[in-house]
């Protein structure tokens, strides 16, 4: 079969196309960076996952060690069941703590794992029992305003100190748990 210059040009054209696609895959896309090896799956229950989405990263010490698999709603406990696909190379103790964090103020949400001290390690299918929900900014703000309002209501000299302490407590620990469990914030200082 004779070769023509047209064949050469078409060959160059196709090679350029393949090179562009490879460039997109390697340099632009996450094909190389998201290569986590074989994974094992653990689940975690959250009362509120905020804006967490499937495929969101699972990080420990800031390093991506897995991805969120699927997110389901459990009608029995009214909780969100999140399955985490964690890289097989990384084993975590049974009492690992799972938090939902936000990257930056407005960034995407991800799950952070904090290792505990247990001797036994998590296996595929296990459940992480210690979790902390996503921080919902609106709830925090409304609680803060509620505290401020109750603070200005009573004029006792001791009150401001007490209520600031209560606010600090509420913000420092988990404000949502306290709010949701007894229905009202604990900050109304006597």
């Amino acid at each position, binding site marked *: 079969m004779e070769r023509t210059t047209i064949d050469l040009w078409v060959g160059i054209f196709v090679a350029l196309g393949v090179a562009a696609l490879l460039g997109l895959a390697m340099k632009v896309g996450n094909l190389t*960076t998201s290569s986590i090896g074989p994974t094992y799956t653990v689940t975690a229950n959250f009362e509120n996952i905020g804006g967490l989405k499937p495929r969101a990263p699972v990080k420990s010490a800031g390093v991506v060690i897995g991805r969120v698999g699927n997110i389901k709603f459990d009608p029995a406990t009214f909780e969100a069941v999140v399955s985490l696909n964690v890289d097989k190379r990384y084993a975590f103790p049974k009492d690992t703590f799972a938090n939902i964090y936000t990257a930056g103020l407005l960034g995407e949400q991800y799950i952070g794992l904090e290792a505990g001290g247990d001797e036994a390690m998590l296996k595929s299918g296990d459940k992480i029992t210690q979790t902390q929900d996503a921080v919902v900014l609106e709830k925090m703000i409304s609680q803060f305003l509620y505290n401020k309002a109750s603070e200005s209501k009573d004029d006792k000299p001791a009150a401001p100190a007490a209520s600031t302490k209560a606010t600090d407590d509420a913000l420092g620990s988990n404000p949502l748990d306290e709010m949701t469990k007894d229905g009202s914030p604990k900050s109304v200082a006597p």
Partner: protein
Amino acid sequence: MIRSNLLVSLVRTLRNIGHHFSDRIWRLGAGARLFWLTLISSGESFRRFHLTIREVYFTGVLSLIIIIVSAFFVGMVLALQGYNTLQKYGSSEATGVLVALSLVRELGPVVTALLFAGRAGTAITAEIGLMKATEQLSAMEMMAVSPIARVIAPRFWAGVIAMPILAALFSMIGILGGYLVAVPLIGVDSGAFWSQMQANVDWHDDIVNGVIKSVVFGVACTMIALFEGYDAPPTAEGVSRATTRTVVTSSLVVLGLDFVLTSFMITL
């Protein structure tokens, strides 16, 4: 008298509208039939692959210059505009993400298809229209050579092959253009530019979907160009009108299809 005149003009208007409408439906059906005939007689264009390669040269290789130059400028403009807005929010490093996502998802496939319709689609329509006007297609039929297998199918497959390649090149060169403006010219950090891009552009959701879009646009643009040429009245005016219609119809179909495909791909 006046009433009957009014009635006559009303009836004529109605008839014109109906004629126009039924003509469109007729052309849609004829186009679909040509598409089907092209598909079932494409065996020929693969057995004699040099015919297809020749058409890839004319539709793809010769479109390279316009694609590369416009991609370069589109990328540079995206980087300038994106940086201008993003730096107000203190996130000028996201310029790379903005350029890459808008090119890979939308502008790459769509602008390539629009340029392809203008550069290669018109050439296909004019060529086939003139072949028909000079009775070359009838001559082929007389020699028991199917013009659909010999002329239409190779051009169709050449368009379908060339479009994704051109779109991938468009995206890549656009990103390089954006890089040139953002990093050496404006001074965005080079590492942040690429790493933010890699963190936010997904292989399947963004790049593969862009390639799927460009394949669909390739089928649509090439088929419209082929049909307009094949259907053109065999006169100079007919061919010129068909060429115009190719550009108008291809552009509208590409933009409409883009919305439909995007709504399928973005799962809310």
